[in-house]
């Protein structure tokens, strides 16, 4: 136990940083190739720091089990509740995105499909279950969980997915069931979530053997709220012309606010990123070289096509200056109140975009199209994400009719390239882009 803990701390504080420093030197020593003239602006310098931060997170994770309590949780889980208990948290969705971007989902999904999981199920779930069953991961090793936490504010799918994991690992699953919000959230719904958060405290305390600590919770919430505010500020820089970055950059840079929310490292990172973005604004540097049209992306990214898609658009002078998805970690979390942690969390975590009705979705489109001066909206109809996709066909129509901007609906899957029709999507994108010129 003690040696395990030592390994974990060393990985996080000494060995990891050392390895990364060496890697940075090596990169500097390598003769710089002259950059090819592409459609993008100069790359964000923060990206290197982001890679280090995330590598460190996963590297430390390798030594976490046995050293500290480990929890696997969904992206919408109130992680702030767990921080005071010293959990190392793993985000299967973040891991799924990583596997998706590295095009490893089909390999993992096939393992799950062989077990009998239908290929109509969410590709994150299939990919993750397959990764667990096969023991394969691009991050070396994921620590075994002592507890699973799932919050249904992003979908009910996570409940089924985590139940499968709970059975496999034979560990407790804590469910935070967030009633869907039609209009405004009702008092008894918020009470229900608050009650469950109290139950979570009891369970976490039992698993870790530590008492609840309201002081640390207070601090964590302060950090988490600050993270949300910083992230919101980063996203808002996209309102400038040209936008200092692209919406697809946002998909990459949202990793810390999802996976490290409530820690100082997370906030330090976003302060740095915000500085850089503001600096770029001051110097007139854009995410793409020649920003002529400003677009909005709806739904999850298509992880395995991010680079190709962003190039296709950038070459035509189109920049995704905002996305509805990255906004999820900025919007309701601003309401977190360190003075009333549990009550404010119950409200904030219920009011996540995906847990609210389509009128609210339309309101967000309206605001974003106005605030970001949007010329066109691309809606990714995501085979794997029903809660995000049901209603998109009507939303598309409403956006065109009411907001007068051009829209495109493309059908794909966020992580499984086997459900992607290259030609079909390419043709639609080209036609959409041609429509601007």
């Amino acid at each position, binding site marked *: 136990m003690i040696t395990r803990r030592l390994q974990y701390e060393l990985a996080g504080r000494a060995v990891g940083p050392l390895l990364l420093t060496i890697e940075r030197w090596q990169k500097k020593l390598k003769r710089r190739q002259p950059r090819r003239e592409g459609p993008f602006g100069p790359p964000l310098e923060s990206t290197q720091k982001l890679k280090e931060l995330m590598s460190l997170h996963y590297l430390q994770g390798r030594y976490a089990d046995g050293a500290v309590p480990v929890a696997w949780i969904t992206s919408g889980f109130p992680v702030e509740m767990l921080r005071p208990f010293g959990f190392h948290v793993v985000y299967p969705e973040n891991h799924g995105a990583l596997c998706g971007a590295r095009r490893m989902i089909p390999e993992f999904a096939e393992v799950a499909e062989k077990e009998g999981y239908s290929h109509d199920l969410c590709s994150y779930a299939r990919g993750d279950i397959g990764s667990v069953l096969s023991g394969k991961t691009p991050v070396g090793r994921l620590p075994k969980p002592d507890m699973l936490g799932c919050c249904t504010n992003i979908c009910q799918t996570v409940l089924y997915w985590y139940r499968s994991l709970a*059975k496999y690992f034979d560990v407790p699953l804590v469910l935070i*069931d967030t009633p869907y919000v039609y209009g405004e959230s009702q008092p008894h719904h918020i009470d229900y979530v608050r009650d469950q958060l109290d139950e979570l405290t009891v369970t976490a305390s039992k698993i870790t053997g530590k008492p609840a600590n309201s002081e640390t919770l207070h601090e964590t919430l302060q950090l988490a709220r600050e993270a949300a505010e910083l992230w919101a500020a980063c996203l808002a820089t996209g309102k400038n012309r040209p936008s200092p970055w692209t919406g697809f950059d946002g998909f990459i840079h949202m990793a810390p606010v999802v996976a490290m929310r409530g820690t100082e490292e997370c906030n330090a990172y976003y302060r740095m990123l915000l500085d850089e973005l503001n600096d770029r604004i001051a110097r007139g540097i854009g995410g793409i070289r020649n920003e002529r049209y400003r677009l909005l992306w709806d739904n999850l990214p298509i992880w395995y096509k991010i680079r190709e898609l962003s190039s296709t658009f950038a070459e035509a002078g189109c920049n995704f200056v905002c996305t509805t998805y990255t906004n999820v970690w900025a919007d309701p979390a601003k309401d977190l109140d360190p003075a009333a942690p549990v009550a404010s969390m119950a409200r904030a975590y219920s009011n996540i975009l995906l847990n609210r009705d389509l009128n609210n979705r339309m309101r967000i489109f309206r605001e974003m199209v106005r605030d970001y001066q949007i010329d066109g909206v691309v809606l990714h109809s995501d085979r794997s994400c029903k809660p995000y996709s049901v209603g998109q066909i009507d939303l598309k129509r409403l956006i065109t009719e009411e907001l007068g901007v051009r829209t495109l609906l493309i059908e794909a899957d966020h992580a499984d390239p086997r459900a992607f029709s290259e030609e079909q999507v390419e043709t639609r994108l080209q036609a959409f882009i041609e429509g601007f010129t």
Partner: protein
Amino acid sequence: MRKEYIEKQKREHGRKVIGTLPVHYPKELFTAARALVVEIWGPPGTPRGPDAGRVQTYVCPVVRNALAFLAAGGADVVDAMLFPHTCDSIQGLASLAPDLGGWDKPTLRFIHPKGERRQSSARFLRAELQQLLTEITKITGFTPSASDLDDAIILHREIDAKRRHLLEHRRHLPFSDLELYALLRRGEMLWPAEHLEELRAAEAKMTEQPAHSEVPVMITGYVPEPQEIFSTLGEVGAMVVADDYAAVGRRVPRHDVAVSASGLDALVEQTFLQPPCPTRGANESLRIEYLDRLFKQSGAAGLIIHTVKFCEPELFDVPAIRKHFSARNVPVLSLETELEPKLSGQATTRLEAFIEMVKSNARAA
């Protein structure tokens, strides 16, 4: 036929009629408030009308069909629509139809808590039931007294007990599967007291000696559509002896409900005594235990897992159910349908081959 029945109910009894989507909702509240509930499971067939394309084809056909049906005025005869929180897709429909077009009469929603019984979820459920009751009374204009509610609870307990009795003594009923399912599924639209009468009449026909000698199978799934499944099974000499369809057997408690509480508290307790259903986020192991018991009690010789394409709650449970029964040398068939009006040739072949397999298996044993 449904439409005529509903109109007659309104005309002759002055009842308000509320349509509902699947699966779980507290019938007792509606009965107590004198509202007739009519369930809409799709309806089966390919989605029709101009609104058929408003939901992507990778979403379950129940939701696609329901939107097309509502938008085409198929349910205009009812006074309000209830959307229980069954799954992500029905949850989406509950906003899509009322907010973006398709349903402009009053909308009710019922969110049932997920997972096993917890203090938090019991408390929440009670509050949610209270709110739903208030919403129903706004539509019916009748506020039931405490004894009205208790009467409704007792009536539905009796109905459930009869349904259970018929299902458990399947072999002693001189009906085909088609006939039995038609009877049980009439409960999705009949005024409860009338349904009870029909159940009693069927019970009276129960025979001393088994009326059937077909190959017995158990079936688990969402909704028994297309009904051709039963005629196909019948043709090859098989029958359903144990049912875990969400629409049928999974809504019938399999033991006497001994709940001392009354009113809403009774409904809360009863909810947690229902058979495990993934749309309530039931624990997978509990569901398997339940199915295993049902299988053994019924003497079934094979298991059919009948899923509706894209139905996430059901599909996630399939691997574990399959694994459990296969490990016990029970022949298992996975059958996937899409609420189509007729079974595909391939599905018919699967069913027939499965029964051939069960027979040869039983002969060897």
